[in-house]
């Protein structure tokens, strides 16, 4: 579904239904997210405006460069639309840069986030690309994820610190929270969309069906 010249962006055939999950497609690995959703039988649609975002049944904020995403969101109403999606209780999945956007506070460099996830996100906290890695996580919330190790692809990942009282930690890497949930918002510092393991995607989709 990538790179089709002249074609419209990823929307699986026959899924123009308004119940599709919106994947914010300003910049980043939005196609990987659309593929991961398709793999569990959920239609996805690329969204690039506040209006498109509000008309989807849920929202994915993909990985990418958070500084680029901030710039592309300026003056578009997208930040407000994300807040509205979270407020009305639709399922939201944010990975890596997406998780940074939702955070209360961001470090390196310091700036406020959207304040929709009660954590502090430290950008590039594990180093540069040479420190990107695939880890099999074993410190898991068994109710949410079961007991098998969870494959997690970390790419120039942020670290989440100081989770507030409303934040459940569902997975940790060396003690650091790497998958957290606050109400209808699920956020990972790794990239479930780049792995074969669909448990995180399923957890997100299940939240929408509840």
């Amino acid at each position, binding site marked *: 579904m990538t790179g089709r*010249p002249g074609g419209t962006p990823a929307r699986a055939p026959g899924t123009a239904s308004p119940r599709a999950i919106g994947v914010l497609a300003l910049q980043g690995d939005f196609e990987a997210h659309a593929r991961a959703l398709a793999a569990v039988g959920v239609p996805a649609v690329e969204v690039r405006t506040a209006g498109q975002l509000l008309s989807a049944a849920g929202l994915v904020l993909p*990985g*990418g*460069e958070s500084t*680029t995403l901030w710039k592309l969101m300026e003056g578009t109403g997208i930040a407000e639309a994300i807040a509205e999606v979270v407020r009305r209780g639709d399922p939201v999945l944010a990975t890596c840069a997406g998780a940074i956007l939702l955070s209360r506070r961001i470090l*390196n460099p310091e700036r406020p986030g959207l304040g929709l996830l009660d954590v502090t996100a430290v950008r590039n906290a594990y180093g540069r690309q*040479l420190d990107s890695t*695939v880890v099999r996580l074993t410190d898991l919330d068994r109710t949410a994820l079961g007991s098998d190790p969870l494959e997690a692809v970390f790419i120039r990942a942020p670290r989440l610190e100081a989770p507030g009282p409303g934040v459940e930690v569902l997975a940790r890497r060396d003690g650091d929270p790497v998958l957290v949930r606050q109400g209808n918002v699920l956020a990972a510092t790794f990239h479930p969309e780049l792995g074969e393991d669909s448990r995180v995607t399923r957890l997100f989709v299940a939240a929408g069906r509840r």
Partner: protein
Amino acid sequence: MSSTFPTFATPFTSDAFRVKVGLAEMLKGGVIMDVVNAEQAKVAEDAGAAAVMALERVPADIRRDGGVARMSPVAKIREIQAAVSIPVMAKCRIGHVAEARVLESLEVDFIDESEVLTPADEANHVYKHDFKVPFVCGCRNLGEALRRIGEGAAMIRTKGEAGTGDIVHAVKHLREVTRAMKALTLLTRDEWMAAAKELGAPFELVIWVAENGKLPVPNFAAGGVATPADAALCRILGAEAIFVGSGIFKSDDPAKRARAIVEATTHWNDPARVAKASEDLGEGMKGLEAAKLAESEMLQTRGW
């Protein structure tokens, strides 16, 4: 002799290769901007660049001044890394294993083994699976793309003619690669080996493309992008992200043009947004018509 059968695809399913392609995935839909110093890097980051590419001179200056074009000075790379928080890429000469190792030791996020610099080897490219840092390489056709991926490139960029501000060759090569991939999908299995022979490409990668209709790694466009509409055109033709070299810092108002090209790369399918981004940009780079270049002046023919 090992008694097991060969497992050609192993390096491509390794965790090491997956995290390389993973970073390329994160850059999709973005703009990677050539910069020669920290000041330009900051302008690029503030404009919304998804990454910056450190090099000694932008292609238009390499073209104008001549001489041997080499890896960026180490001090410049460190200065750029200190100035921005987005990924920093840097170029090494084709086949220059030592420059590539130096760049890896500097912890750049991506290495571009680039025809824009003067080649160090007239027959061979770097064996990129030996490195932990990911590589991007240029191509003019599918065979060249698959040879580079076979050596371990985690991202491909179709070559335009760098430093000209003329989009014509980027278009030509994007269309060429797309057409060749489509053609492979129409073949029967009996025809795959002959196709591999004709393309001069690794058999297992030819099979992968025949079955999937796309490259196994992200495919970006580079060379000759000077306007927001040029960037949108590359996206329309299937490029998943855009490299911009001389087009930004050889224009009147680099910050504004950089921002406009970022906007057009995201909203490529919305002509009104591209139009709005194209307003009041001042003069673009003057440019050189690629068709008027002699074969010996072309950078794109480097790469084997």
